[in-house]
Each structure stands twice: as C-alpha cells, then as structure tokens.
C-alpha cells in the first residue's frame, strides 16, 4: 500500500472515531442557533465534514482502473 493510501485510510478511521463524541454525552448546552442541543449540532456538523472528506477521497482514491470506459443504454 502506498503512502497516500495509508494517509487516506488513517484519516478516514480518525473521522470514524470522531463519531464517538463522549464529551457531549450528558449535556444539552450550548444550544447552537438557540435551539440545537450540542450533541445534535455536533453530529450535523460531522455529517457535513463527512461529505467534505468524501470529496477528498473521490479526488484522491478514485478506482480509475475499474472503469473500462464503455457505456450502455441512453443517458437519463
């Protein structure tokens, strides 16, 4: 496995680990935007961070070798 794959895999695992935000477990405060408990706001932000990281993965870890370049049928 080359260095780039190791780094991308490690970062993905770190993001996976950040899902376990035990520090927000027993508190609702602060309320983000005045009504979102921190435990919910954190995971909403986590979801957006996942989208951003996936864009990085698509850019740097796209399996080009699997695509034979052919297509079938019509575009929809």
């Amino acid at each position, binding site marked *: 496995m080359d260095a780039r794959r190791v780094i991308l895999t490690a970062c993905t695992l770190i993001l996976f680990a950040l899902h376990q935000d*035990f520090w927000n477990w027993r508190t609702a405060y602060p309320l983000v935007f005045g009504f979102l*408990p921190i*435990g919910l706001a954190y*995971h909403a932000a986590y*979801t957006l961070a996942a989208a951003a990281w996936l864009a990085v993965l698509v850019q740097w870890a796209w399996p080009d070798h699997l695509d034979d370049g052919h297509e079938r*049928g019509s575009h929809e």
Partner: protein
Amino acid sequence: MTAALFAGLYLAAVLYIGVFAFRRGGAGQSAEGYFLAGRSLGGFVFLFSLFGTHMTAFAILGSSGHAFSNGIVTYGLMASSSALVVPVLLLTLGTRLWSAGRRFGHFTPVQIFRDRWECNHTGTLIFLLQAALLLPYILIGMIGGGTVLRTLSAGVIPYWAGSGLVAVVIMIYVIFGGMRGTAWVNTFQTLLFLAFGAAAVAVIGRGMGGFEQAVSTLLADPSLAGLLTRERVSPEIFFSYAFLPLSAIAFPHISIFCMTARRMRQFKWTVILYPVCILLIWLPCVFLGVAANSAREIPRIREKQTARALLAGPAAWLPAAEAAQTRSRASGDDVLVVLLDHYAPAWLAGLLGAGIMAAVMASDSQILALSTMFTEDIFAWYGHAERYGARAQIATGRIFVFAVTATAYLIALRVPAGIFELAGQYAFAGFSALVPLYVGALYWRGSTKYGALASVLWVMAAVAGIAWFQAATPAPMGPPVAYFSLGELALLQRTASGTTIAGYLPVLPMTLVSALLLWLVSRVTPKPSEATLTRYFGRR
C-alpha cells in the same frame, strides 16, 4: 381526510410514473432491461434513487418515533454514522460490484460469489439467507404505508386497507416498470420528501411557537430534558450502532442497484452528496420527533407520554398482553403525522402527508431485488432460463414479485412490532455481518468458498439464535435482565428492545466473528483456480 385524498393522488402519480413514464422500447424484453434498467441509469437518477431505496419508513417514521422516545441520540445512532460509512462502502465495494457486473455480465452478488469462489450450493445458501433477511425489511414499507394512511385519514382507512393499497400499487409498477420504473419512482419520492420535509419543519416550528420555545419547554421539565442529551443510550450501544450502516452494501437492493449505473463516474456525486441528503432528511425528522414531546396540548402526544412513563416505572407486574398494548400506545412511529395533523392546514397536511407516503413506500426496490435474485440465482442458475428463454425468465420474475408482495402484506397484518425495532433486530445486523463476504470476494485473492460458507453458517446461526432468545425470554419493562454472566460482566442480556452481548449490540460480535471465520477457514482451504483469480485481480 384531505390528507388521505392527497395521499391517494400521490399513489396515482407513482403508478403513472412507474408503469407508463420513462419506458423505453425494448427495455422490458431482456432480463438486463427489466432487472437492471439496461445498466443505463444516469447520475441524477442514480443518486436520488439509491438514496430513496436505502432510506425507507425506517428513516422517516422509525427515526422520528425513536427520537420521540429516546431523544437526539437517534441522529448519531444511525444518521451521522451512515453519512460516512455508506458512501465509503459505495466507493470501495459499490464500484467493484459495478465493475464485476459490467465485465462478467452478473446481475446479483450471488452470481459474483459463485463465479469468484467457483461454488454452487454456498451461493444458494447466501441467496436463502439474504432473502430471509430482506423479508422483514419489505414488511417495514407495508407497515409504514398502513400506519400513515390510517393516521392521515383519521382512522377512516383501516390499517389492513392502507397496507393493502400500498401493496397493490407497488406490485403493479414493479411488475410493469421493472428497475427503470422503480428507479424513477424512487427518484420522484426522494425529491418529494426533500421538498416537503423543509415545509414540514417550517409549519410545525411556527405552530409550536418556534423551536427555541419547544426546546425551553423540554429543558424545563426534568422528565423530558434528558431527551436533549444522550443519557438514555449507553456508549457501548452507541458504538455498536456504528456497525449497522455496513448493512447498506450487503442489502441486495443496494448491491444490485450498484450495477445499474451507466458509467462508474455516476458514483462520484452519489458518494459526495449522500451525507448531505442524510442531513436534509434525518435532522428534521429527529429534531421534530424530540420536539413533539413539548406539544402537550395534543391529546395523542400526552397519551404516548403517559404510556411511556408507565413502561419506565416499576410496572413489571403488568400482564404480557397489557404490556404489549402499552408499548404500542407509547410508540412514536406516527408522531410526525400527528404533528402535521395538528399544526398544518388541511391542504398542506395533505401535501406533506403525501411526502411521508413517498418515504414509506421504499419496499418496491427490495421486492424487485428479491425477484431478480430468484430469477438469476435460482431459476437461471438451475438451467430454466436456457430451457425456456428470456421471456419466461422475466415472466417468472413478475410472478415472484406478485407472490412476495402478497406474502409480505399478509405477514404485515399480523406483525405488531415497532418499525425501528423490527428493522434493527434482524435485517440490519444480519446484513452487516455479511459484509466480510463482499470484502473477501472483491479484495482478497486468498478468500475461498469454504471461508464464505463458514461465515454464512455463522450469520444464519447467530440470527436464528437471537430470534429464538428474544422469543423465549420476555422483554423486561425496566432495566436489562442478565441471562448469562462471567463474574461481574453480563455477557448475555435481554433488554426492553432486544439483546446485548457484553453490553454491545449483537451486530458487533456477529460482524467480527464473521470476518474472523472467513479469514481463518480461507487460510486452510483450497483456493479457486488461478484463471478465476486472474480474471478478478489480474496476474500476480
């Protein structure tokens, strides 16, 4: 009742789209055209249909119902973990499924397993396991459809009729529209729900006097403030849930759908935008489910909270039948519809109700997937396609769709379990534990059919064991009851909603043992031929 009329209009629109719209000449004449839309879906349909296929009544009614009872933890349990895990699976395994399907002409994962591991009966066993695990998931749609129509019509349309209507509509457009019709219906459903979901948040928020007000009400009540934290779920359970999204790629309707993309690049935007779609659907559903607890002016909300308090209290003396009734009254599966009914004007509630109908009717792709599996993995594999031809193969698929839908409907009439519970206990854990098979087949040259067999037998035994254990032991109304302990550690516990192993959900040990068995047994058993390995992985 206006809402029920809108839901009826929605069903008619779905029927039109599924049966008549977007039909292409000849698409229904070949098996590839009927079951895989000719492998020609573009990026737009691929993203929204895949998302709509994955997010079912479980996501909408199940999530708001679970959040109503358990609080904001619901989002972290299933949504945010899915936001990372599912797209990573699509990127790493979905693209390889697409490639294997395109290169070797496969329609189903079982075809890939049989080809890759040079096996026969192990493939049949995997088919049987996947079919058995998929059936409860199909039931979710039936139960969801019946529940929503009953609530929208204020009880005028009984549960049996609502479920029946949903079953008939799905049956018709899946039979006549095949994968293309189903994909377009799912796209329409997803867009509809995304659009109306935003309207639902605005209308309900205003009706509640603003979300700040709703949250303040919850924080002021000690019995409800905990819903805004995660104190009702242990860290072990929370961690276990991060393994459940693995199930996505092992669900036949998702893995088969991966083979419908016209080009591999169709996965790119799907992978990136999948978390955004999750956020747009799950965050409002979970938040509204929690906030519903502040709407105590609604009698049905108060009734649910009273039943929940009864279950949480020292009420172990309740007879089983009464306990089941109390659980049913406490269930929040219809809480979103109750809120709409109360806060939205009738015409808007109708439109929004149609949006909810859109979300609960995702059984179509699962039924089509089962039909594809049966015709390809059983009918065609055992030589009937060669004997009778492609037309007979498609006809068999259509008859199978009818049989599965009718069976699912009849079972849905008799199943009392909550939507969330039903999905979580069997289908998700079982499919998650099958993921090592996909990784082994598509990434590891050393995996063998014997390793796969060991893994499949383990998953079968584990699912059957948990189902037996939960049937044999009554669900406690209070804290979990330990049935087997090692010193201080409770190894096997029966909880109110299921089973835990050393505090974790069964999905965790099931998946880890499945991977371990695949690895161990593959190490000591003969590999497939070099020719097969070269076809899949190239020369060493």
